[in-house]
């Protein structure tokens, strides 16, 4: 045990480890907070699709020389605006979302083929590489997280109302389409951030995992949101430590830990429910 702690304090001597820890914290925080509403709205698949669209954006960003994150953010936000504008029928269609995400993945592959460092870039975008975050990127991530959380706070009440009772919310004067478009944009940002840690293929992990567990335990919104964020950030820290100690990737540990926690939470709450 002492050995592990020595290992961790040794690790923290390195700038890249500290940067990874800080980047991981802000990304996980935003993903878990936004994800709470994604799970409540049952739009997990749309979140997943934004990850794949982000892949095309990231690859285009690499080809254009902007870097993956700006490319991903740009295309994600355009896609989010489109999804919001197209309305409920498209948002709830598995077929339309499925077709779009596979097209986006194909488009990303096309961009990658134009680029020399094909394999390395692809792996980084698909599975993330939190250890490669530079201090400059860190400030950008922090700014995006603050922006995303402020956006969520502004949208908070109409978003929750529109999620639980859309028709009623509309009758009370909530602009449903505006609220849903703005929320899609927040999801777009959260997805782009989360994919820096775990990659576009595993965005689901940080977006859906923590709130799915939190919703099993919390009956009210604020505690649920707080637990979701705590789980997201906690799992990210634990994954970084485990990755450092075992030399296995963060993108293995984060989904594995969340999967195990989810099974445990399901087993626990199931027993409570029958008691």
């Amino acid at each position, binding site marked *: 045990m002492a050995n592990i702690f020595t290992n961790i304090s040794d690790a923290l001597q390195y700038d890249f480890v500290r940067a990874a820890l800080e980047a991981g914290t802000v990304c996980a925080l935003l993903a878990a907070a936004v994800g709470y509403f994604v799970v409540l709205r049952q739009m997990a698949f749309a979140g997943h699709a934004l990850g794949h669209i982000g892949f095309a954006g990231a690859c285009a960003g690499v080809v254009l020389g902007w870097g993956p994150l700006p490319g991903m953010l740009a295309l994600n936000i355009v896609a989010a605006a489109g999804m919001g504008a197209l309305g409920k029928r498209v948002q709830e269609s598995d077929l339309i979302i499925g077709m779009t995400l596979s097209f986006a993945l194909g488009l990303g592959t096309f961009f990658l083929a134009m680029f020399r460092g094909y394999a390395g870039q692809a792996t980084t975008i698909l599975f993330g590489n939190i250890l490669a975050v530079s201090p400059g990127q860190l400030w950008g991530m922090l700014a995006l997280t603050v922006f995303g959380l402020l956006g969520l706070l502004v949208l908070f009440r109409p978003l929750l109302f529109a999620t639980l009772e859309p028709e*009623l919310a509309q009758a009370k004067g909530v602009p449903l389409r505006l609220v849903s478009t703005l929320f899609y944009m927040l999801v777009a940002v959260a997805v782009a951030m989360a994919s820096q840690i775990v990659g576009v293929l595993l965005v689901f992990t940080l977006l859906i995992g923590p709130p799915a567990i939190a919703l099993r335990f919390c009956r009210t919104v604020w505690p649920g949101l707080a637990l979701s964020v705590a789980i997201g950030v906690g799992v990210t820290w634990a994954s970084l430590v485990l990755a450092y100690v075992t030399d296995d990737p963060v993108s293995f540990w984060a989904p594995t830990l969340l999967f195990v926690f989810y099974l445990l939470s399901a087993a626990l709450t199931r027993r409570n429910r029958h008691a």
Partner: protein
Amino acid sequence: MTEAPAIVFKQLGLRYGDHDVIADFSGTIEGGEFVAVLGPNGAGKSTLLRAMLGLMPSHAGSIEIFGHGPHRGCTQIAYMPQWRSQNSASSLSGRAYLHAVLDGHQWGFAGRNPAKNEIIHEALHAVDAEAFADRPFNVLSGGERQRISLAQSLLGRPRILLLDEPLLNLDPRRQGELIDIVHGICHREKVTVLFVGHDINPLTKVVDRVLYVAGGRAALGSVDEVINSESLTNLYHTPMKVLRLEDMVFILAEDQRTIEHGEHFHQH
């Protein structure tokens, strides 16, 4: 000055897509009336409620709510939508749901405070739902969920309640309980109730009048005025028979297929 009636329909026409849902319908509903809104599936009962909420424009004529045209955000009118199956899976509690509805039309965020807690307590008390208000939705029975949903419509003390199929998926005993609660509120608070259902029988004892929607038209009147063979034949454009057995009413088409009886258990 005497107060304007709760709801006035003037030669109202409503369209859904290309077809007329309701044409040339006129009628007045006074404050404190309990009106059953009946008719077959897809006849336009929900469309009529949506028009009263300002969610869809009228094609012809007008609706007046206490003398004003329908508009979104009207505080005098409350709405209990049909139960969404999505919410049945929710692990949020009824109380959390009511908090979300109470001030969900305002931007930004807010915590709870004693004033809001009191409003929610009152609404839960009115429908006798305090015992299960803190349990998650996904463990509640159908009747309990409907009562939480009804409590939602009472927030802010509205003067008109539009209830869309509150009896759906309830067994006869739970149906009776819910009707008694609504009737009590209507009677005590002088609230006007429009209660959408399939079957007049559970409601016969409490309704003042019936608004029947069928065949692209609507009729408003007492149970006997509207639910008789002649009036329904006119509405449906096909020969209809109304049979009475003790205090039960059965509505049949000429081909002997029951229109109403036993329809209240089916799924949507």
